[in-house]
Structure formats: C-alpha cells, structure tokens
C-alpha cells in the first residue's frame, strides 16, 4: 500500500468536512509526522504530513520492484559491424536521403563484405525495410544478431526477426522470415534441384497464394522435365498468380504435355499454301470454343472490358501458351520475318500480345532484339520492359545507338535506362561515359541547372553509373548564384559519389569493363 493512502481521505474530501483525526504512520516517518503535526490546524496538519512524506519518499526512492524474468538479450554477433566513421557518414546519409537504388547498393555491398550494420543505424534500416519489400530482402543478410533481436521488439519490424543466421536449414525453413525461406530455397535449388522441389511441394498447402507464387518462381533456376508434374498440378491452383507462374514455367519446357497440347491447337490454325513467290502462311482464329479448353486454362468467355474481339481473344489465349520456338520450327521463318508477317495478318493485335506475354514469361534474346529492331506499332510502349529482358551488354547497344543518333532526347532516355537497369547493377563504363559527357556539356553551357526533368534524375543516375565514369560529375561546382534546389541536387550528387566510393572501399564492385 502506498504511504500516501492514509492521507488521501482528508486531502480529497477536504479537511473541513473530514473530521477524523490524522492517521498514524509506523516507524521513524510516523514519529516525524506526529511531531510535525502535533497541535496544528487540520489543513496545516495534512500539508505538514505531506511535506514529511514528500521529503522522505524522495530520499528513500529505490524504483519499483521488478520480479519478472528479463527478456532474452541479443546473442553475440558473428559478423563484424561497420565502424569506420568515414564510411558510416555517407552510408547513413544514403539510407536517410539517398535514391532508392543507392539505398539498395548499401546492404548489397555490406553483404559482399560480410559486414553488418552498426546498432545506431538499425532503427533506420528496419524502418526502411518495413516500407520497401525490395530493400527488405537485401537487408536480411546485414542485420546481424542485434538487428534480428531489435526486430523482435517491435510489431511492425517483426518481418525481419526471422531465425538466427546460424540456425540449420530446417529451422530457417520453418521459422524464418519469407526472405530467409526464399533464399534457402534458392540455394538448395542451385545445389540439389529435386530436394528443393520436394521441400517446396511439401510446404505449398500451408502457404498463402502470394508466397506460393513467389516460391514457385524459384523453380525457374535449373528447370527440368522432372518439374513438369508439379507445375502441371499447379495449373489448377486456387491462386491466379500461382497458375500464371506455373504456366510461365511450362513455356520453358516445350516437350511437356501442356505446351504440346497448346501447340497442336495452334498448328491447326497456322497453315501454309504454296504460291508463285514460295510458301505463304495464313492464320485463322478459332471459330468456336472447344470443350477441353477449360481444363487447360483457356477461358471461353471474353472479359467485359477486353479490347480484343471474341475470336481474337481466343486466339490470343492459345498463342500465349505456346513457346516461341514452336513458331520458328513450325513455319521455318525467323523472329524478324514472323514479326513482319504478323503485322500484315488480320490478327496482328492478338498475335503480338500473345507473343509479348510469352517473351516476358520465357525471355528469348533473338526475339527481344528482333522486336526492338523492328519496333512495330503496338510494341513501342513496352520498349523498356523488353530491354530489361536482355542481358545488360545487349541492352546497352540499343541505348548507345539512341544516344548516337539523338532519336530520343536525353531527358527521356535517362529514365528509360534507369528503369531498365536492375537495382544493384551498374552500367558499363563506355555507356556511363557516353551519358556523363552530354551532361557535362550542358552544365558548361549553363543549361543543366535549369533543366528540371534532367537534373531530378541525376542522384539516381549517379547511383547507377560505372564508378570510373563518376569522377567528372564531381566537377559540377557550386556557385553563389545557384538556386537552393540546384544546390540541393549538387549536394545529393556529391553525397552519392561519396557513398559509392565508401561502398567500393568496403567491397569492390564487380565491374563490367
């Protein structure tokens, strides 16, 4: 009971109405109160008792008893934390204010160096990961035991709590965060594809649809005929994303039963006749829906807002279930010729859309380049998407060409390049130099500071350029008459450069020449 309790009745009701004499307290405090209140008016007695209690209470303070068990402390870290202030300064800035691409480069470099974030940065890192799924996976390897411990302490950081790095595969698979489980599946798939498939198959019934779809996509690595049975069963999954993931993977197995059936349907519609100028190919759309379509995920009913007509909609669905290689084998035409041919048929829209779906699901370099070179109408808006399917070196050929002939203005080309360059990768040195040079020329002409579109992409660009090409950007000097926002941009640029250099000292980038 609180020592104040005996005093409360009189103090709350008022000593005028509370006639009872003051209570007695035990011990030395009681004696002090008795001495202080002897002979005093009722109100003064209450106040004097309060004075004794206040002074003695303050002097005897010891905190509240705490008998509960203390929560588990963070285990010792096995990774070394980042401690060099010269690296921590810019890295802290990058996490707080850097472009998303730079934020991602930080944990990737730390992971390459086998280092972890120091405790002071952990709240920032966990909060960033809460808001960005893309960063979350990269952060997982750099949190250390302390970071995982901290994540457990807060509800909205728990995504990162996971199982400890030392935990064995089974514990990680059962108790780990989604990122940990996916990483585990990926590494197992690389070493033992069958074991990874069986692990996934056993877990599928308990996983939510989104996780099922993302984990099934892991099978793309070392995909083989043995995977067909599982994929075929997933065509009937409850989740639409899972069905799509399974169908996309089946496209990469041309010998599997499902793509074979799809090819047979299409073969009946793509026919040739011999003419004066050689073989002529014709295509017709299905005239009626077949009974066996439903079992193969072909919908007979056209969606309400579908732009294609009913028969075109049917054709499109047939096309998107057939690997691109079938077309070249069946017709003997190459990708470029097929594209030209399709544009002239009555069913161009359905064919192009179907092919595009297949291309995205099972990328094919020859087809990608054919589309990019031909650039037929209807495909142009998917330029970036298609470029992203190409290996970086092949992509850059197209950008170099566009830079050279000036067909696309720099302020439109830069965002395209950035969108197509995957986060965590950098552009080649020649392309980087080719991009920096016109920027410097504009700055020299005084035009860069006022080009709002272009300058907004500069910090992000600095995070994507080849390290060797970055130095000239540091020569963009500040002048007193610069507007504050341009000064901010230059500052962000300088900090990005400093971060890139710090990260490179930490873990040299694997540079493409």
């Amino acid at each position, binding site marked *: 009971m609180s020592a104040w309790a005996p005093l409360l009745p009189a103090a709350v009701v*008022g000593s005028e109405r509370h006639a009872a004499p003051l209570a007695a307290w035990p011990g030395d405090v009681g004696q002090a109160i008795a001495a202080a209140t002897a002979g005093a008016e009722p*109100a003064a007695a209450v*106040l004097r008792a309060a004075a004794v209690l*206040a002074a003695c209470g303050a002097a005897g303070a010891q905190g509240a008893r705490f008998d509960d068990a203390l929560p588990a402390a963070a285990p010792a870290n096995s990774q070394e934390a980042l401690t060099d*202030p010269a690296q921590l300064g810019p890295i802290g800035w990058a996490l707080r204010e850097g472009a998303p691409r730079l934020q991602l480069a930080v944990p990737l470099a730390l992971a390459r160096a086998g280092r972890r974030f120091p405790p002071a940065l952990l709240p920032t890192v966990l909060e960033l990961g809460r808001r960005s799924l893309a960063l979350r996976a990269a952060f997982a390897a750099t949190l250390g035991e302390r970071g995982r411990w901290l994540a457990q302490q807060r509800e909205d950081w728990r995504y990162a709590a996971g199982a400890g790095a030392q935990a064995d595969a089974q514990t990680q698979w059962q108790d780990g965060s989604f990122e940990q489980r996916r990483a585990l599946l990926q590494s197992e798939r690389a070493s033992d594809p069958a074991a990874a498939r069986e692990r996934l198959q056993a877990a599928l019934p308990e996983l939510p649809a989104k996780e099922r779809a993302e984990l099934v996509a892991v099978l793309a690595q070392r995909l083989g005929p043995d995977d067909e049975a599982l994929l075929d069963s997933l065509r009937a999954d409850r989740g639409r994303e899972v069905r799509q993931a399974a169908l996309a993977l089946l496209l990469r197995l041309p010998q599997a039963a499902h793509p074979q059936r799809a090819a047979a349907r299409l073969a009946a519609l793509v026919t040739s006749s011999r003419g004066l100028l050689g073989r002529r190919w014709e295509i017709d759309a299905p005239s009626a829906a077949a009974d066996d379509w439903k079992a193969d995920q072909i919908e007979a009913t056209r969606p309400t807002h579908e732009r294609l007509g009913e028969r075109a909609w049917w054709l499109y669905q047939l096309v998107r279930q057939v690997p691109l290689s079938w077309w070249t084998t069946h017709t003997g035409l190459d990708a470029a010729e097929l594209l030209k041919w399709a544009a002239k048929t009555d069913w161009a829209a359905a064919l192009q859309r179907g092919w595009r779906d297949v291309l995205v699901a099972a990328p094919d370099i020859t087809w990608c380049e054919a589309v990019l070179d031909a650039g037929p109408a209807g495909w142009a808006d998917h330029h970036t998407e298609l470029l992203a399917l190409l290996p970086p070196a092949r992509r850059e050929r197209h950008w170099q060409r566009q830079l050279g002939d000036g067909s696309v203005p720099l302020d439109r080309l830069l965002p395209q390049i950035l969108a197509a360059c995957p986060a965590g990768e950098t552009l080649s040195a020649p392309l980087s130099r080719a991009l920096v040079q016109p920027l410097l020329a504009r700055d020299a002409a005084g035009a860069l500071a006022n080009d709002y579109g272009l300058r907004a992409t500069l910090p992000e660009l600095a995070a994507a350029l080849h390290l060797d090409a970055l130095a000239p950007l540091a020569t963009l000097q500040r002048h007193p008459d610069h507007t504050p926002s341009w000064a901010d941009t230059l500052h962000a640029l300088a900090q990005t450069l400093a971060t890139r250099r710090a990260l490179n000292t930490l873990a040299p980038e694997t540079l493409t020449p």
Partner: protein
Amino acid sequence: MSLTLDAVLALAPDASSAKAAQGLLSPSGWPQLGASAAAVWGACQGSGSKPYQTQVDLGGPAFRCTCPSRKFPCKHGLALLMLRVQNAALFKDEAEPGWVSEWLATRGEKAQKKEERQAAAADKPVAQADPEAAAAREAQRWQRIEAAAGELQRWLADQIGRGLGALNAELLQTWATMAARLVDAQAPGLAQRVRDAADSALARDTERTLHHLGLLQLACEALQRRTTLGPALQAELRTVAGWPHDRAEVLAAATPVTERWTVLGMATELRDAKLTERRVWLQGEASGRRAWLLDHAFAGRGFEQAWLAGSSVVATLAPFPGTAGLRMLCAGAGAGAEPTLGPPLWPATTLAAEWQQVGERCAASPWVTLHPLVLPAAVVVQVGGQTRAVCAGRALRLLLGEADTWALLAATGGLPVALMGEWDGVALRPLTAWTPGQAAPLWLRSSE
C-alpha cells in the same frame, strides 16, 4: 580524443543547424583542411565569393567562423569537427596559420585576464557602489517573498480545507492566478511549483499533487522563520523562491576549484518557444563530486561554452550557495595551455551508493527536482509499451522519445550497460549509456 558524431551533433544550437552541417560533409566543399594538437581549421566554400575561415579550438571545444550566421556554433564549425571525426586523414598536420594561432592566443589571453579579474575580485570584498542601498534592496525583496509565502500558506490551507477531489480544469484556473501573484511578488520559483502541482492535479494524480503541495508548505514555513536559519539554508530558500544568485555573488561566496571533469550527460530542451535550456552533468575525476551546469540561451543562438558528452575536460567550477550542493558555475574551461579535451573517466559506482547520494541530497534540500543518477548495470526493456531500466531487481520508468527509445534498445540489445540520467523522483530521463571499460559512449540522447 574520443569524439563521436553524435556528440558533435549534440552541440548544434537547433535541429536545422545539425542538418545543415551534415550537408557540408563532402570533402570537395573544403579546399583547405588543417590540424594541430590544439585546433582544427578549414576553408569552406560558402555562398560568398571568399571561402569562410572556420576553426575549432579543441581545448573547449570552442568555435569561430567568418560566416555571417548568427547561430553559434554555426554549421561550418559543426561540419568541420564532424569531418575531423569522420575522416582525420583529410586534415593536413601542420603549423597553425596566422589566423588560427592569433585566435588561439587571444583566447588564451582572455582566459588569463578573466582569471586575473576573478582573482582580484576574490581578494577584495565585493565592491558595492552603495552597500547600504544594496542591503536595503535585498531586505525589501526578502520582505516581499516572505509576505507572498504567508499568503501562499493560507491559500494552501484553503485548498486542503476544501479538498482536492472537487478540482477541475475551471477551478485550477485559480491555481494559475495564484502562480501569477507569486511571480508578481518576485518568487517565480514558488510559482513554478504551484503550476507543477496544478499539472499533477489535472492529471488526477493526487499523491503527486500532495507531494508538490507538501514541499510548498515546507518552503513557506521555512521562509517564515528564515532569519533563524543558517546562511546555506537561507541561500537554498532563495533558490527555491526563484531569486537567482548572479555570477559575482557565486564567485564571492566560494573558491572555484579547477579539476578534470567527465561530462556524464547533457540535455537540451526548448522552453517557451524562444529559450533553450541546457543542463550539463559533470563528475569530478579526482573528487568524485557531481556537478550540474544550467544555462539558457535564446533559441538558435547556442551556448558560448560547448560540452561534449562522453569526454573529459579541465574546468574551473564554483558551487552555487545553498545546501543542495549540485549546481555549479563554470568560471572557465580549458584554462591550461595544453589541449584539455580527453577521454572520459566513467564513474565506478554501485546502485546502493547512487540511492544513498540521492537520499543525502534530499536530506540537505528536499526541494531538489532533478538528481543525476548512474545505474551501473541496467537492462533497458519494453514492458507493456513502457520502456524501463531494470537494475538489481528494481525498475525505473524511462522518459524517452520514440526515436531515442529504439536507438537505445538497438545500442544495448538487452544487455546490461551503465546508464546515466536525470531522476525526477518518479521517472528517469536517460542521457547517456556506456559500456564499462570503454571510453566511447554507446548512446547519447538526441537534442530535443
């Protein structure tokens, strides 16, 4: 020198200066950077045509810059010191250029002159223009305060007579009126205690309200018989009433002591939108004495003397008159010729000794509102949404902002650390955490 970025940032007069300083950290903005044992300096390209000349005397640390900013220290000075912490290799070790050595010399001279003046002042009795008139003014002010205390005592009895249970926001307006009357009677210290009691009453915390009222009763009764009390207790009552001792009075009453002090912690708070209050807690490395420095500055202007939490510095301090023996006045820091900033000597203490000190201080002056407290091995835990420090089976509630809570948890990881804070009798406001045996602090409270 055991400087950390956090400690330097804590010197910033406000949040915008701290942010601006972080924006000046790219080495390209500093065409010249140099360092000697006593100082660091650099030229910073600002918005003017000539670069600013920025310098930091490491002995204080003290700052100087040629920029026109009214903030002190300015962003350039902060950035220079942060660069030094981040990347000492950028600084060329060389002899101080003229503009640096001259400033250091004048600082040394000033300090010396100040010391001489103080010595002269201490030798002579306080020279008053008219001792009689001064004594009369003093007697008049005591008279006013004592009269106000008498009125306050009657008012207190009235409140208790009517009972605290009937209080509501409207009735508490009369408490604000009472506080205003006390300010008019030149007793702002008593007024603040009435306002604190009103805050507790508004929060329906009757025990805490009675705590405040009880201590007010004690102060009133002591003031009524002030002349029968010793000089130290009279000085303490003067402080409780809110009649501050000025610098000359403090220096006249006690001999300043020069010693190496460890800066245990620092709290900066914004008061009334315009005034910044800074509380610095020190511990004498030889004497083991705890000291409290209380300063105020107009917001954004910063403080003349900078203190780095988690460092140690030689300083000359004089205790304020009174019985609490906590508050001191800094008569000069870095008085010697050598650089005086060094690593901290964290206090070796036990929990029992800490509470003993609090108890003794309360016995000497029950009106002390903030006690420096060092928990030698505290585990920071979150229980039911509350953050607490658990030490030897006892738990103290922690007063911490959201960001500081997570930074402290990240820094400690559920492991026992030494935690220094301000104990207000109910909760602890942690300021510094460190691992015993390591000089660099684990965590510092961010400035508010």
